[in-house]
Structures are given as structure tokens and as C-alpha cells.
């Protein structure tokens, strides 16, 4: 049975004019994160210096890794006469000092509003360099339009991935490779996805791949650009792959990298939600079985079995607990699906994103498990979430660390997932996806509830 759309469904967006404690980040930040997942790449913001510095700081506080973002550092006169000269000088300087394979140029609200034609400026830059003959070989330069007044960091992220494919993929001979567009997931998630593909005997092209670039080892020397990332040759070859898997429950119908590969090069596109929880992961593994012609390899089958065993062992701890879930739309859909599977009752699922597809995606993943769909609410901030949740008596919160103030005020646990995590250690190593991620998530949810129970108990039980 699929639940009818809840009568408590909210209209899109907040009832208020002002935004308090946003539940989203700005568009160019997402673009920078995506560019960071390409081998030899330097993200570059065309705008004023502050944007790059703020985003670097925000990203560094989560990953605890160097995150260089170059800037065209526009000043007042550039805002009036155009940012072209600074953009070109900035590109030249990055080429000179970083010797990158790729520069990913993202725009900001300043340069979009003053009307800089960035693709044209980049073409001019390349022509000028070639005419001068001084700077061969030039890196590839990919541009993406990412004004922060349009969308959230997720639109910036997907936009940058699409721009990479659009501007780098060429007609390539058919191959057995599988493209995987994972969206914004953790370095640990990407490492795990690679392991899964390998175990199925599949050659994967994962774009972007932040598994090393934003979670690197200690080394002998300081690298100007961290090692790892999707190789440019792989991106160029994506057009010949036999299929594209694109994660994101709210992406259907949108103009994504996966769609572009399908339309321009005829690569079969499989869009699916993030493989989070049991059933969404089953869909993913099922597709891999089809694509590889192999059965689920034993280590993964065992992990699935252990997850089922843990669901049984832990079911009473979580059944009926009321959860508020917030964050990026696709992550919220995946988390809610998992919560519904284990018997937690999601009561509010909120996002700063406004794709318009959130509620439909939610109904698809958990409509048959819940007597009533939770309040599903896009385009909101933490003020809205707090107002709405107060009447819902939640037992736990699941989301990034910016909901901590609510957890603290209400005296309930926050299970930290996704990005950013600024108040705990190891956010870059959190696993969310697949059977293994679901297992870890289950353990963390149950342990948070047990810790709460222990703290609230006058007895101090030693067995729980």
C-alpha cells in the first residue's frame, strides 16, 4: 500500500521572508567540492576574494585537509569594468604555480550579476596563451555557472559534474566500463563504492572521486595538489562506457551529467536514490549483478546477511522512535528510507533544497512502510524546522552538525551524517552507503539511543 500524500504536507518553502540558520550552503561551494574530485584539478572562483576563503575554511573544518581554492580576487574597479583581466591573470598564476591538469572555474553572484561571459573569457585566455607561446602546455579549463542566488550547494555540485562531462567527454570507443556519479558522499563512501565495483569485476569511472583528495595520507612532501581524483582520461572516456549509474532520488528529469551522456553519446542511464539502507542498496547491488553478470560476491552477501541479523537484534531499541531528518534532499530521502525500514518513525523530513521532487521521492522509498508519510518540507531553514518539530516530540535528530543547537535545546541525540560535521572528529571517514554503511548507521543510532537511556536513568543499568 502506498500512503496518500499527507494532509500535513507543507507547501514548498518557508512561510517567512527572512532566513534564520540556513539548512543549505551556497552554489559555488558545491562546485568547488566537485572539482576537488578530479585528478590534478584546482578549483577556481571567479569573484571577490572572500568567497574562496570562506568556503575553504568551511570545507577544511570538515575534512581537516588542505583545500586550496583560487580566486580572481575582484576589486571595485573590476566590479565596474568587468572581471576578465583578473580572471586571466588568476588563471595564468594558477597554471604557473600549481601546474594543474585542470582548472575548474565556478562563477559567483558578483560575476554573474555584472554579466561576465566566463566561457568567452576562458577561450580568449587560451588563445592569448597559444599566440604568446609562453605557457604550453595549458591545462584543461572547465567553467560552470554557479551564482549563489540560484539553488543550493547541491545544484552547484551537480552543475559542476555536468560541466566536467559536457566539456571533457569526447566520442570514445565503446568500453566495458561503468560510469558512477555518486553525488556528494564521503571519501569513505567512495572508497567503499570502488571496492564494490572491483569485487563485481567491473571497471568503474567514479566522478567526482574525493576519496584521496579530501582524505589523504601523511607523505614525505607537501603536494601542491593532493593525489587522487578522477583522471581526465577517464572523464573523456565516459562517453564510451556501457552504462551510467547516477545517485540522487530527486534528480530524475533534471539536466544532469548522466542525462547528457545518455543524450549525446547514448550511454544507458540508471538513475536511483543513494544506496542507503537495505532496499535502496539492494537495488544498487541488483543492478551491479545485471551489469556484471555475476552474483553478489560472497563478502557483500555476508555483509547483507549480518545487516539483516543486526536489524533483528536491534529492532526493539528503535521501533516507534520519532526522528527528524534534515540536510540535502537526496541524503534525506535515503536516510528516511532506512529509518522506515528499521521501524523508526520519521516525523519531519526537511531540506534547504527545493528541487520540487522531494515528496514524490519520499513516497516512493517508504510509502509502503509507514502508516502516514512524514511532514516533507523543502526550502526551509532551521527556524522552520524548530517550529515544526516542536509539536512532533522527536526522539532523535539525523543530519549534519548544524542541527546540534536543536539537539542540545531538546535534550535528544543527534546522529551526525553527511556534510558538514564541524563538531566531531572523522566526518570524512563516516560511511553512509551500502550494507556496510547501513550497518554502521544502525549501530550509531542504537548506541545514541542507549546512551541517552543510560544518561536519563537513575539506576545506571550495566546491561541494556
Amino acid at each position, binding site marked *: 500500500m502506498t500512503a496518500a500524500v499527507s494532509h500535513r504536507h507543507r507547501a514548498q518553502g518557508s512561510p517567512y521572508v527572512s532566513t534564520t540558520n540556513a539548512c543549505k550552503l551556497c552554489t559555488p561551494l558545491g562546485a568547488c567540492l566537485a572539482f576537488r574530485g578530479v585528478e590534478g584539478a584546482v578549483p577556481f572562483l571567479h569573484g571577490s576574494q572572500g568567497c574562496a576563503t570562506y568556503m575553504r575554511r568551511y570545507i577544511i573544518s570538515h575534512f581537516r585537509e588542505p583545500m586550496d581554492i583560487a*580566486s580572481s580576487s575582484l576589486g571595485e574597479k573590476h566590479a565596474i569594468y568587468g572581471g576578465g583581466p583578473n580572471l586571466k591573470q588568476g588563471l595564468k*598564476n594558477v597554471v604557473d604555480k600549481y601546474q594543474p591538469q585542470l582548472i575548474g572555474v565556478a562563477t559567483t553572484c558578483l560575476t554573474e550579476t555584472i554579466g561576465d561571459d566566463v566561457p568567452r573569457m576562458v577561450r580568449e585566455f587560451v588563445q592569448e596563451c597559444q599566440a604568446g607561446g609562453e605557457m604550453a602546455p595549458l591545462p584543461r579549463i572547465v567553467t560552470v555557472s554557479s551564482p549563489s542566488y540560484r539553488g543550493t550547494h547541491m545544484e552547484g555540485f551537480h552543475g559542476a559534474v555536468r560541466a566536467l562531462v559536457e566539456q571533457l567527454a569526447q566520442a570514445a570507443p565503446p568500453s566495458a566500463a561503468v560510469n558512477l556519479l555518486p553525488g556528494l558522499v564521503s571519501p569513505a563512501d567512495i572508497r567503499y563504492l570502488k571496492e564494490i565495483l572491483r569485487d563485481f569485476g567491473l571497471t568503474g569511472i567514479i566522478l567526482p572521486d574525493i576519496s584521496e583528495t579530501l582524505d589523504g595520507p601523511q607523505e614525505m612532501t607537501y603536494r601542491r595538489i593532493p593525489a587522487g581524483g578522477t583522471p581526465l582520461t577517464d572523464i573523456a572516456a565516459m562517453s564510451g562506457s556501457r552504462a551510467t549509474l547516477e545517485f540522487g532520488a530527486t534528480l530524475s528529469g533534471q539536466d544532469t551529467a548522466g542525462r547528457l551522456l545518455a543524450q549525446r553519446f547514448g550511454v544507458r542511464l540508471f538513475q536511483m536514490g543513494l544506496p542507503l539502507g537495505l532496499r535502496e542498496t539492494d537495488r544498487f547491488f541488483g543492478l551491479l549483478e545485471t551489469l556484471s553478470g555475476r552474483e553478489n560476491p560472497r563478502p557483500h552477501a555476508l555483509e547483507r546477511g549480518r545487516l539483516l541479523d543486526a536489524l533483528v537484534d536491534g529492532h526493539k531499541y528503535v521501533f516507534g522512535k520519532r526522528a527528524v531528518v534534515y540536510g540535502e534532499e537526496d541524503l534525506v530521502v535515503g536516510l528516511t528510507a532506512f529509518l522506515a525500514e528499521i521501524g523508526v518513525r520519521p516525523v519531519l523530513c526537511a531540506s534547504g533544497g527545493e528541487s520540487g521532487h522531494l515528496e514524490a521521492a519520499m513516497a516512493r522509498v517508504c510509502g509502503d512502510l509507514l502508516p502516514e508519510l512524514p511532514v516533507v518540507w523543502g526550502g526551509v531553514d532551521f527556524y522552520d524546522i524548530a517550529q515544526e518539530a516542536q509539536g512532533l516530540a522527536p526522539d532523535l535528530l539525523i543530519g549534519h552538525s548544524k542541527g546540534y543547537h536543536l539537539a542540545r535545546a531538546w535534550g535528544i541525540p543527534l546522529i551526525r551524517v553527511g556534510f558538514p560535521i564541524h563538531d566531531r572528529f572523522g566526518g570524512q571517514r563516516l560511511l553512509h552507503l551500502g550494507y556496510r554503511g547501513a550497518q554502521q548507521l544502525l549501530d550509531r543510532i542504537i548506541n545514541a539511543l542507549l546512551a541517552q537511556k543510560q544518561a536519563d536513568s537513575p539506576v545506571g543499568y550495566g546491561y541494556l
Partner: protein
Amino acid sequence: MKPVIFRERADQIHRKGAEPFRLTCNKESLAGAVSQRACVFCGSRVVLYPIADALHLVHGPIGCAAYTWDIRGALSSGPELHRLSFSTDLQEKDIIFGGEEKLYRALVELIDRHQPAAAFVYSTCIVGIIGDDLAGVCKKVSQEKGLPVIPVQSEGFRGNKRAGYQAACQAMFQLVGTGSTEGISPYSVNILGDFNLAGEIWIIRDYFQRMGLEVVANITGDGRVRDLQRAHGAALNVVQCAGATMDLARMMQEKYGTPFCRVSYFGVEDMAESLYEVARFFKAPEILERTRELVREELTALYPPLQHYRQALRGKKAAIYVGGAFKAFSLIKAFRLLDMQVVLVGSQTGTEADYQELAEICDDGTIIVDDSNPLELSSFLQEQEVDIFVGGVKERPIAYKLGVGFCDHNHERKEPLEGFVGMLNFAREVYTTVMSPVWRFLPRRQASRPRSAPTAEDPAP
């Protein structure tokens, strides 16, 4: 690999001893150089942020507000309105049709909801471009709601952080002089340029109170609108972090004749001298006597535990890269007190006079740098073989990837580093990072020592 230093930046780096001092500074950051600087908005936001009973509304797209939400550990003893992040979250249609109406409605909504003592409205890049009449909207709301609503002209591209400090001072200056100064003691001060990170301003207030002085306004740590409004009644402005609030001190001197002195609360030497300077200003023997007593008491408590750290840290090398050069002076002295050597010092926004003074107190061979970037900093840290780097969050991964200790002397510190007790905390933090056993396992450090592989035991004869 090519050298890390840009030709255009060569004159922003000085090595003491090699040549006579010359350093270019206060210029626009070089495009593509990955400057550690932020923007005008950032400068205004960090200065005004700790005013805890004011509404801080960022007029612009969401990023500027999102990245400054609860960003500083600026504590409040009362209201905590400053810890919320308010934005007009401008959308594409606002950019096309103008954001004034949205700003007006957002302001009215938030003032009704929170009943703040005043509102600051920050302009961002885009507002400067689309030409919203910020001042006009602020004036209208101020009249309708009966509270000060003050525009902050902080468009990001209009200069660097220093311009933002200036805009913040101009905004605060609109409040100064609007309140009653009745009952303020002739022995009174305002504390300027302390932001109450980790409760630091409470330490300093305690010192002044023990000296017999009344503190009228905290500017801006644990700040209140009402205190700012009567700040012109204080006898003296005591100004730390000179870059951030010096403009306000100058404006107050000009309009109200309030004298000011520059101080620093970091390190033993500067802390003690700052208190003495304030005491001497009042020309009252009992205040000077109380100050001597205070310093004596504090030093007696501080020195014994400090010795332990000093012995362990003797001879270690330190690098400093901070926002304003002023802090660097005190840090150099603090490291000297620990018998450590500073081999690199730099700042985002120092002035020529600052750097001149730095060059005078530094040892030969010290690198002095203005508006640096990760490539330069990483190369200097390696070249100078430092043991600890002092900076902010953006500098931390540079140190750690090089296997170098780190001390956060910026917004995110949770231990007070000001005052006499702050010196002890600083020493403990330096010790905690420099003496950790983890460094010896890193490949960079191990290259210099042979790796110990287990050897098989000889079979028993």
C-alpha cells in the same frame, strides 16, 4: 617544480638581515595566488558579531550568512542573538527586481520576533551591484520600529578586511553618543578590540575592576548596544587589536575628546605593560599601587607552572601567520618567554609601520611576509624546519600535512589566551602539540632516522 613565490609578490616578503628592511603591503591580493584573506564583509562581520543583543542581518545570497553562522567563539553573559545567522537569502528574482522590499519585510519580521536592541544590516557584493538603497530601508524601519537600524557598507569587493573594520567602526559610531553618561566614574575605560573569545574579555574586565576602574563598554566582546550608546562617557579608550577598532577610537577622540591608548593582552610582558599604561593615565597613586599588586599576584601564580613548559620547549622553532600584525608582536614576545625562536612571521593585513616594527624585534634570518598563501607558507615551514605554526583554521592543514605542530590563535580557540592565565594556557597548548609523540612516526620525520625493523632472535645455542 617552479619556485613558489610569485614575481608580483617578491616585495611582500622580507628576510631579516639580508638587506635593509623593505616590504610592500596593503595592496589587493594577487588573482590566483590563493590568498588567506577574506573580504570587506568578513572584516565588518567579525568586529560587530559579538554585540550580543543586536540583530545581525546579512543582506545577500545565503553563502555570506551561512559561512559566518556562530563562527566566532565570542561568548555572551546574557542574550545570544548574535549566535543566530540571519539572511535575506536573495534569489534570482530579487536580483532582477531589487531586494529592497524583501529586506524591509525581513527586517520587520525579525525585529518583531526577537525585539533586539538594535539591528545591523550588512551589505554584500551583490547589493553593491544591484544598487539597493540600504540606508533608505534602514532609516524607514528605524522610524517605524523605534530602534537603531544601521547599515554596514561591507560589499565584499570594496577592498580587504581592513575596509570592513572601518565600515564596522562607522556603524558603531552611529550608536556612540546617543545614550546617557550619567553616573559614569571619572576612573573609567572602554575596552576596544577584544572579542571575548573563550571568555577573554571577562579576564581583562576583572583586571581593570581590581585596579579600581569602571568598564563602560565592551567593544565588542560580550557587547551591548546600550553600553555602546554611552561609551563616550568613559575617560579612556583602551584599544587592542589596533586594526579592527582603531578607527572608532580616532572618531571618538575627534568628536568627544576621548583619549586612547594601544595595548595587548597577550603574553606576560605586554599584559603587564598594558595595565601599567592604563594605570599611569589616571595619575592616581592608589590605582598604580593596586596595579602593581595585581601584577605581582598574577606573576607569582604564573611563573612556577610556566617553568615546566619552558624547559621542555627551549630552543624549539615557531612560525606565526595571523590576521593582523599587532597580535604577532605579542606572540613573538610570548615565544621568547618560553625560550623559543620565531623564524617566520606574517599577517593578512599588516601595515608598513607594523612590519617595520616586526622587523626590528625579530632575529636575523626570520622571514616576514604580507598576505601569504598556502604554497609560500608550506615552503617556508619546510625551509625553516619549524616545530609549531600559529594561525587559524586555514593554516592548520598546512602545518599538519607537513608534520608540524599547530596552535589556533583565531576564532576557534576555546581556551583563553589573553591575560596572565592566558599565557599559561598558551604555553600548555604549545607544549601539547610540540611534545606529542605522533610526529616521530611521520614519514617526513622518519627520513632522518633509520627505520627499526624487527630482527629475528638468534636461535639458542
